């Protein structure tokens, strides 16, 4: 049984059909890339999976339950996490507090009011910050970080709740080459406990990090398979050449 299975997903915005029967299947501990030309519906499919959009038709199952109608909060509690395309770290809070905010999300209200998990979570906060190479800036405001660092902070926050599935929408957007390479490095270790869906324009990045790919074109799945299969696929090569 796959971890995530979305099938027959359609999404219509007014007269625009963004998705037309798209599907996505992700297994345990699998890094899955979602690629396709601009306007192919990658981000919309991601949003339907994450709960930021409700699909017009179709069904999303996650860990054996139908989550199509779940709110983002319910999805998060079921073990799904999302990193937004536009960085949305909380700029006025310190890095430390950004991570703590993410870590304590599932604490009871009682614990929060009495700050009972603050000490317990301290080590986890520092571990996350160290893992994402941000520990020495723990007490700076998040707004003071570079764009790339904000993306890492955002990924760290998305991972804080120990999700089973992490959705990354263009994690390397606006990053330098060096930052992209480091991002790949930072993501590798999480494979032991988490699957990943990545929407990304940078095909090199995708190829390096992903196990399987799904290619979308005009709201439909054009191909899905291992990286090698996709690279050998004629019609995939065609759409990329056509639009290049």
């Amino acid at each position, binding site marked *: 049984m796959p971890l995530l299975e979305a099938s027959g997903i359609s999404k219509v915005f007014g007269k625009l059909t963004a998705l037309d029967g798209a599907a996505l299947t992700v297994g345990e501990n699998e890094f899955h890339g979602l690629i396709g030309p601009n306007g192919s519906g990658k981000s919309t499919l991601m949003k339907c999976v*994450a709960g930021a959009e409700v699909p017009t038709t179709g069904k999303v199952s996650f860990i054996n339950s139908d989550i199509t109608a779940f*709110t*983002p*909060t319910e999805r*998060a*509690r079921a073990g799904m996490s*999302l990193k*937004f395309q536009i960085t*949305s770290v*909380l*700029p*006025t*809070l*310190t890095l*430390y*507090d950004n991570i*703590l*905010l*993410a870590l*304590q*999300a*599932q*604490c009871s*209200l009682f*614990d*929060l*009011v*009495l*700050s009972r*998990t*603050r000490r317990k979570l*301290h*080590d986890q*906060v*520092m571990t996350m910050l160290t893992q994402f*190479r*941000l520990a*020495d*800036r*723990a*007490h*700076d*405001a998040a707004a003071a970080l*570079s764009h*790339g*660092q904000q993306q890492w902070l955002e990924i760290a*926050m998305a991972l*804080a*709740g120990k999700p089973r599935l992490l959705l990354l929408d263009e994690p390397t957007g606006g990053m*330098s*080459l*060096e*930052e*992209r*390479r*480091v991002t790949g490095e930072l993501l590798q270790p999480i494979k032991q406990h988490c699957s990943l869906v990545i929407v990304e324009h940078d*095909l*090199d990045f995708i190829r390096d990090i992903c196990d399987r790919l799904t290619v979308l074109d005009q709201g439909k799945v054009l191909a899905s398979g291992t990286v090698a299969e996709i690279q050998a696929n004629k019609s995939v090569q065609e759409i*990329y*050449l056509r639009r290049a």
Partner: protein
Amino acid sequence: MSGAREAVARISEDVVTREGTPAASAPAGRASAGWKVLPIVEGLVLLIALVLPWVLQDYLTVFATRVVILALFALSFDLVWGYAGIMSFGQALFFGAAGYGVALMARDLNVTSILLILPAGALIGLTASLLLGGFLLLGRYPSSVIFVSLGTLTGSYAADRLARGWYYLGGQNGIPSIPPLTLGSYEFEEGPVYYYMVLGILVVVYLLCRFLVRSQFGLALAGLRENEQRIAFFGYKAQHLKAIIFAIGGTIAGLAGSLYAFHEGFVWPNMLGVVFSTQVVLYVLFGGSGTLIGAVIGTVIIEGVSFWLSDNYRDIWPIILGVLLLLVIMFRPLGLISFVLGERERVGSFGKAPKKESGNAAP
């Protein structure tokens, strides 16, 4: 395409060898200057408040008592707007409802004991805010700021109209001659005793609020205020958080309203309506929303200045006050408190002082 890909790979290798690990060059967390300003301001305000009845004439102590009660009311709005980002344009609804409630208890049931009146006032505020908050905030999807602000405004306005038209509540005139608040056989008359009593309550509520906003719950509120959608994706029940803080705000407003009713000796429809609702917004914006002391300072200054202006510039004082408010809101959107309080201290840090790490970060 593959040629380009190889080129990219080569370049990125170059970068790696030249730069080594990235992003490690940033300076360690600087100890923000002036981290300790807030307690000093709070201490000063308390000190001034404590000596006030000794230096003021009696009629001014009565005025100061009113200001302290209004500061309590301002705290309730500050929690809701300044900390949780819920635009409540109807905070007076809870203030006035409690005022009317306790006035009726005194008039019809002869209940004036402080031990019953204050809990009753708080309870009325709590109930009213739970009902309105539940309706406005607890939808399946987040309600917009506009919806909440119009909803609260409408609630407050409707209550005002209702009170004006309802004979049982005294109509336009409200409920006059409320007897003094009592404790056993002791009667709280206007003056220093009433002043210190409400000051004590303000301090206790202030400390409770301070504890709350600096707790991990306070961190959740900060997240709520900054980006409600984001924290929902973490798994926070954002609507519940909002309803809870709205109810706490309503409770405090109810407490303030019942103290106000007994202090003034009467209640009237304005207490429920738009006048008081907008007044409290101004207190908080003027002093500095998102800081508890800002709400208190804003109340004291606005009330103090209007008192002084209305004495000295009988005809044009509202215009002067209006211009002053406008200037502050235009040029100091974070309120007067931002003259002395830095950004970091205003927002606060919720992580415990890092003893286990290098120890060079904020104290």
